[in-house]
């Protein structure tokens, strides 16, 4: 019986080692590959049509892949702005879309259309703020977005015309292609001056931005 215990113990130990070792190896390989991709496709991280928040000439650039219907994106958004406020004029935010949910594309089309009326950032904040209502996953009510637009004094008739422009669809498609290129699987995904966060979190984003700001001094 003693011998059996040793065999069971050793088996468990070797399998745990394989699992943990394999995890580290896989993550290391993946990080290497992502680094290569980022070097190779660095210019694709930002597109000329991508909305930019803050000073376009700011030295530090946060690229955020987001989805208007994603809960974490909504809770995270005020924090992204807070990080930017900590370093006034040093940081800009570039929005890319990763529309993974049911009504995401609809919301993105409206968002893009609001740019013609210079209400993009107000609309994005409003969409995130009201997301628990319109973007509830069990009972989504995307039509509520129209009432929010009226509250923001946006010409909804104009939006309805603008949002169907093929240009917007091309943007969404291009962003989705880059989602694949940069292996964005979760939203929000951040790249600070072309580097991914080591892990996801408030602190990690702040630290990454702080580091880049200090580098530019």
């Amino acid at each position, binding site marked *: 019986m003693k011998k*059996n215990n040793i065999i*069971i113990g050793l088996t*468990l130990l070797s*399998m745990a080692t*394989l*699992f943990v070792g394999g995890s580290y190896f*896989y*993550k290391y390989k993946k990080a290497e590959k992502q680094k290569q991709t980022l070097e190779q496709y660095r210019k694709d991280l930002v597109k000329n049509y991508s909305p930019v928040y803050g000073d376009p000439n700011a030295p530090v650039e946060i690229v955020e892949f987001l989805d208007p219907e994603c809960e974490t994106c909504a809770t995270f958004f005020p924090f992204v702005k807070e990080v930017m406020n900590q370093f006034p004029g040093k940081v800009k935010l570039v929005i890319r879309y990763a529309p993974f949910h049911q009504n995401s594309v609809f919301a993105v089309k409206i968002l893009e259309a609001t740019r013609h009326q210079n209400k993009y950032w107000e609309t994005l904040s409003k969409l995130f703020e009201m997301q628990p209502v319109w973007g509830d996953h069990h009972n989504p009510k995307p039509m509520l977005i129209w009432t929010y637009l009226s509250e923001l004094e946006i010409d909804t008739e104009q939006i309805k015309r603008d949002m169907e422009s093929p240009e917007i669809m091309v943007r969404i498609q291009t962003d989705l292609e880059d989602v694949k290129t940069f292996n964005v699987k979760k939203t929000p995904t951040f790249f600070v001056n072309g580097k991914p966060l080591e892990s996801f979190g408030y602190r990690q984003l702040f630290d990454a931005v702080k580091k880049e700001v200090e580098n530019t001094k």
Partner: protein
Amino acid sequence: MNDKQAYGIIFTCWLTATIATLGSLFFSEIMEFVPCTLCWYQRIFMYPLVILFLISLYRFEKSILLYSFPFIILGWFFALYHNLVQLEIIPESASPCVQGIPCSTKYINWLNFITIPALSFFAFSILLILIIIFYKGYYNEKK
């Protein structure tokens, strides 16, 4: 079949179930493949086997057959069904995966036939064969 051989069979069963469990966790947690509905059913029937077989390695009783067999056979059928979906013998529309990840998604395809459901079917088949050997050679003999 003597006690030692029977113990060896259950040990191999435990090893198979543990490798399958850790492998599936590696796919979902480390490689971040989202499991589809059918994958979840196979996981439901595979994971408890690790615990069941481990306990029986300490308190070796032939009754392990009764406890493990329902899990193995149900898991085996789910794995069979999932493979038929992936091989397009059963159309995806007839399968229960409506939302989320379609069960026909092939995350891996090593050597053109080793997909994740194929690995699952392989593991459940090994368990099924082993437990049948256990039944014929040990459970039935030692009444």
